């Protein structure tokens, strides 16, 4: 029976690159939009698109690392909400304090996840579901369930509202730096390769003498830190810490990771394709906004949730055959 599973796996592996589709779809949608919407290529749309999606790209990349190990992090949305409040409180001290402070607070929650998963051996989805709850509670407690306005006098808001050459928001530039750094980590360091090996077979990775525990701690802390950074973007972009934001973000992040060709069961995937996946999902909403503006369709904000779900549904149905194959192989 092992033979059959490995046959399937072999066929799957022969299929070549699994991220080609997302790039093709992304380019096709961009061309479509450029032709259809006059303002699509304008500086305003580009910079607001990048600014808004920067936080989703950041959490998606963090999520990508977690999923590569075969885990999942459901807490990212709550963590971002929590750190946005932290960032708002720290904003009077300026960006140089608020940014690292919020990222560190996200990292701390990630470390808690890592502790639950690695040391206490609690299944990742339960552990991160609990921290999702905990972070939400924490955000509400420290904010008193109110949005917390940032200090407009400090340089903090420049982060979310300032632009380079009037088109690239600072958030997008920071995101790009993070993405490149993490891309190098995944492709060119033993920590990154261990992350991949864990998803491909945790026991085998242990037997090879790889430091599995360290890598697992790393991915959850990374995901927490990424969510922390997203919280900073959230607070600086909207001018306030938002304790009630972040609902459904984990869904967007998982969808972006999966559409980028990363196997939900781990072991295979890429940082750059995840970014493409996040951009694709963002583009879908961008297009819907344009259509709304043209009066072609009229969708309330509540549809966002439904569409996110539908997007993930479409993606996983496409990938279901693949993930089924690997589940069989790795079980």
């Amino acid at each position, binding site marked *: *029976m*092992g*033979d*059959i599973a*490995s*046959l399937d*796996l*072999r066929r799957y*592996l*022969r299929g070549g690159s699994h991220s080609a589709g997302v790039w093709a779809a992304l380019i096709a949608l961009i061309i479509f939009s450029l032709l259809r919407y006059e303002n699509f290529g304008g500086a305003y749309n580009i910079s607001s698109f990048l600014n808004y999606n920067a936080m989703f790209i950041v959490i998606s990349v963090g999520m990508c690392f977690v999923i590569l190990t075969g885990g999942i992090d459901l807490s990212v949305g709550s963590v971002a909400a929590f750190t946005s409040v932290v960032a708002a409180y720290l904003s009077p001290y300026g960006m140089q304090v608020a940014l690292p402070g919020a990222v560190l607070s996200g990292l701390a929650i990630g470390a808690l996840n890592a502790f639950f998963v690695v040391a206490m051996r609690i299944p990742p989805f339960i552990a991160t579901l609990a921290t999702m709850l905990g972070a939400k509670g924490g955000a509400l407690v420290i904010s008193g369930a109110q949005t917390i306005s940032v200090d407009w006098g400090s340089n903090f808001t420049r982060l979310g509202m300032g632009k380079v050459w009037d088109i690239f928001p600072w958030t997008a530039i920071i995101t790009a730096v993070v993405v490149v750094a993490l891309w*190098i980590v995944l*492709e*060119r*360091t*033993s920590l990154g*390769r*261990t992350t*991949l*090996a864990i*998803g*491909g*077979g945790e*026991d*085998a*990775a*242990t*037997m*090879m*003498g*790889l*430091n599995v525990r360290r890598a697992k701690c790393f991915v959850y802390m990374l995901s927490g830190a990424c969510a922390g950074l997203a919280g900073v973007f959230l607070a600086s972009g909207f001018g306030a810490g938002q304790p009630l934001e972040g609902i459904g973000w984990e869904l967007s992040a998982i969808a972006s990771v999966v559409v980028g060709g990363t*196997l939900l069961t781990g*072991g*295979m995937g890429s940082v750059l394709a995840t970014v493409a996946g996040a951009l694709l999902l963002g583009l879908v909403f961008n297009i819907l906004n344009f259509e709304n503006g043209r009066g072609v369709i009229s969708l309330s904000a509540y549809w966002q949730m439904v569409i996110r779900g539908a997007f993930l549904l479409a993606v996983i149905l496409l990938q279901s055959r693949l993930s089924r194959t*690997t589940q069989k*192989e790795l079980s």
Partner: protein
Amino acid sequence: MTDLIEMTGIGKSFAGVAALRDASLSIRPGEVHAIIGQNGAGKSTLIKILTGVYRRDAGVVRMSGHDLAIAGPREAQDAGIATIYQELSLVPLRSVTENVIMGYEPRSRLGLIDWKAAHARTRQILTRFGVDIDVTLPLGRYSTAIQQLVVIARAVSLNARLVIMDEATSSLDDQEIETLFSVVRGLKDDGVAVLYISHFLDELYRICDRVTVMRDGRTVATHDVAGTTKLGLITEMLGRDAGEIQAAGLTALSGGTSEPGRTLLQADGLRTRTGLRGIALDIRQGEIVGLGGLLGSGRTEAARALFGLDPLTGGAVHHHDGVALDSPAKAIAQRIGFLTEDRKVDGIIPHLSVRENITLAILPKLRKAGAIDRLRERQIAQHYITALQIKTAGMEQPIRELSGGNQQKVLLARWLALDPEILILDEPTRGVDVGAKFEIQSIIRDQVAKGLAVLLISSEFEELVEGADRIVVLQDGRSVAELHNPGVTQDALINAIAHHHDKGAAA
């Protein structure tokens, strides 16, 4: 000369149950050393203590005369002990290179992994084993044999002084085993010691220098292989009298002289996506039909296709009732049973009791007003526990607490409870101890005498040759020959497989 590894007085208990008491092992540099013993004799526990997976409760481990304290796989590797586990210890989704150099990657000046150097080094290492493949592709794309060689290559590249092979050949075909053995001989020539664990005694005589026999957590003896006999080793493993074993024969399937009855099932030109490319066979009442062939020849796949587990892409299965067998449920409704090869994965439901495991396949028959007829269920369970002499604290004991042989008997009971017409047995005695093996074989023989038809898959040629009335020989997913008993010898079977194999040339 100092021994490379010297383990003495090793003791280890799990939750108060002693797995090892006063076990010992000594391995000389550059020798191929075998450990044999029944399941539960303590072989794997001893090895896991050596490789740092478990911590010992008592005893001393020395390597080249120095005390050795290993706390994990990584430290074992660094000390020069490499292990090739039964379940391949590699990552099929990742590239060949990563599987070889992972943990010891060449770095560029910036401290990042230098992939060019890594690929080159991997190619160089593999060349030594006569393997020339694209190392950038995922390992999962290659055959099991290549994967196995890659693991060994990794071990050797880490300057191992001892390579432990745990059931390394169990998923290889003859040719691949030959390659593996030449690699082992090569290691030996380089002064690397090999610790070899295998259920196949024949292999011992082919490559091992010395053998350590274990029983009940103790080391019974260590011999030069050249001075032993197979019967002598089995005697030591079992702790039973040699004459007794000889009288019983090595398999209890033999001795049936039944006349086959009408044809129950007939298959023609079976093709599947799982690799069958033309299988024809028929099964008649009261006979044992063996499926012979190497691993990968399509034996299990043929059984799965007959049982309705894998869809056919060509050919047809004719059941004597004219029913299409396209799902296990339908096959079971036609009183066909399938005792699978992998007990843990495809057989037992660990949390459920012995009773619930026995009656699993006959649930539809126990239906009484939507509920389970509990009285009848208990009667049936008790009947089979008695009839098959299943050693259990009671029918309510969870099956996971039973020994391997008794679990296998419960699974056999599951299918016998169906009052089967046809029973497919895939490696029915693999991984069970010799005593249980005899019992299982004689139960099967009894049932066949009563009219049961059996399709038998076995990697032990002895079991096939002595047990089957007919042997259908498979090769590359095709049925290529049929041998009839009496008169089939192991040599004849091997010839049939080998002969067609040469002609096939596709290997």
